[in-house]
């Protein structure tokens, strides 16, 4: 079976862990996230002809106090930049992280605009968003609470990486 490492990155509190939780049934405690900065989960995604096992590396929220750790990105086949549509800053931070990632890897990057169950509260216009989305392989508007687009995002990644 094909296995792929996928990292989830983003500012603190955007809902990376909740996205993973929505997608998998994990075995490790979330204490790992705060102690070593990463927690690994897995989920098998069924494609039309094959199965792909995604190894999801949920990486601790990155902020100005806690620098980006490129080591965890090593060997990743793709990464997801998670942002929170209720906080404008989360997109700026997400883009910063994205640019830092680009310095070490050129694997596909996905943009997840999370918390779609809440009202949009950032000031980014449709055009601005479209502009930023260009830098990514694809953009998903997700909700870890309702599960909206979560599965389809991971399925998209699995397909992208397999074919």
């Amino acid at each position, binding site marked *: 079976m094909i*296995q792929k*490492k996928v990292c989830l990155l983003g500012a603190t509190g955007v809902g990376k862990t909740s996205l993973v939780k929505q997608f998998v049934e994990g075995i490790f405690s979330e204490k790992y996230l705060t102690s*070593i900065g990463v*927690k690994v989960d897995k989920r098998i995604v069924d494609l039309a002809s094959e199965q792909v096992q995604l190894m999801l590396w949920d990486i601790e929220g990155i902020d100005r106090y806690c620098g980006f750790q490129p080591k965890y990105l090593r*060997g990743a*086949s793709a990464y997801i930049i998670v942002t929170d549509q209720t906080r404008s800053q989360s997109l700026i931070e997400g883009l910063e992280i994205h640019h830092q990632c680009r310095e070490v890897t050129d694997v596909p990057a996905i943009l997840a605009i999370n918390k779609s169950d809440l009202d949009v509260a950032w000031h980014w216009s449709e055009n601005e968003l479209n502009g930023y989305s260009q830098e990514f392989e694809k953009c998903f508007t997700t909700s870890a609470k309702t599960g909206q687009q979560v599965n389809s995002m991971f399925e998209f990644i699995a397909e992208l990486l397999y074919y």
Partner: protein
Amino acid sequence: MDEESNNNNMDAKQQQMDQLRALLLGEENQQITGTVKKHAREIVGDVFSEALHDRQEKDGSVDQVIIPLVEKSVERSVSNHSEKMVGYLYPLMGRLIRKSVSAFLTEFLEKTNELIENSLTIKGLKWRFRAWQAGVSFSQYVASQTFVYKVEQILLIHRETGILLKSVSQGHGAADADMVSGMLTAIDDFVSDSFNAESENEQQHLDVIKTDDFSLVLKRGPQAVIVAAVTGNMPQEIANQLELTLEFAHRIYDKELASFKGDTLPFEPLEQQLKECLLEELRPEENKANKQPWFAWLIVLFVCSLSVTYGYFWWNQNELKIAIEAIKNEPGFVLNDVDKSGLTKVKVTLLRDPSALSVDDWLLENDISKDNLDIEEKRYLSLAPELLKLRLTKLLADYPELTVIWEDNLPVLTGELPNAKRQALSSKLLALPGLNEPLNVMSLVEVEELDNRGENNPAILKALLELNIAKVDSIQLEFDQGQSGLSDLAKEQLKMLANNFQTVVDLADKQNLSLGLIIMGASDPVGGREYNQRLSRDRARAAQKVLVEQGVDPGYLNAIGLGIVESKTTGKGVRKVLFNVVYFDSD
């Protein structure tokens, strides 16, 4: 002529030489150097190695030129492409390191061997003996005692991605290898980031993760990491086997590892190699047997035998206690206390009537050993009927003339005694404890007939008459409540009374006295006055009837009922028939 031609030749040669010199060294020499340069590579190439060899032989100057060059280029290459260099050197280095490690270990074990040889601990001596028994070297035996382990699971992880390439485990219950691989890689990254070494190129990595009962052993190759989960004490053997397997994986799957894109299928055939790392060593059975906790068993045995002994003593003591308690049923004994004393003894305090059986005799009779008994005996007087019998029997041993009739535990003596002897007996009976109404007991004891020497002496006759009247008067018949029927004893008494009265009649006749016998019935106050009047009269008449039957002339008899008669001293009613002889002068 010859000389001239010779000179000409010489000149021509000289000329040719000059031409050649000009050609080689003159201004025109570029042609030749040009031609030589053109073929310089081939020319030098043909003799390069040989030339180097010759020059080195000649003055050793090649070394001096080449060594700094090589050193510099290697240095540059290593610093620029360290990862690659490690990749190249890994298979070779691995083998070298293993060799050196095993050499070190052997030396270490030998040293340990020496150390233990010199130490005179009991364990050391025991192991030495066992090793000698088993025919192996001491160091080997020590190793077998120390290294007992089991490799539970082996993971082969792609180093860059942290993705599990292949895992094998012994039995079930192995951890989710995929996620463990990821987390291990993450933790390794965490460690190498968090604890930076002084030099930037030298990174810290996990080697062993140890918990109380198992260890994770990590061996790192350039492309992959092999991890073994080991329980128990891990011997060097496992590390060696892991290194071998890792090298093998690198050698065979070099390309697959370098171009790994997440497809683990090509690594399936590694299963066999990985399984070879699932080593285990069980402690040999005989060692297990030897591990019996003899000391603990001894203690258990000791405690068991102690409790059995104690239980035996306890049981014996209990039996003895129960047996000795039966003494309380023996007449003349009062058991005050029976208590266990110490482990085997039983302490007894009791009261014993002097006329009762002695304690020793009782023990003998009941087959009880005196050994474990501690008896404290005090004297007392028992009023038990059995004791009364004993005392009376003892007393009557001096009076063979008398016989005893027992009526409801009350003795009645019959027979004849001389008056003095009778008096003595009477006082003895009075002093006898437990005997109620001692005079009644004696009531049937006759006084032996005196000689008739003074038969006609009126004073003697009178005295005899008085004596016999007293005899008759002293007789009292007892009745049950509300009854007027006579008991056997009463009938016996009446029989005797009839005889006595006949004697009285005879004596009275001799003295010309007329007499009568008043038979007085009495009763207790239970029931009405009239009833009791009638009952007392019936009792008197019943006695009268028997006397008539015994041959007493009814003319003498006068039965009267006294009705209720109460004793003023005791307050009790008198259920009796009393007799009184009255006499008068005939004239």
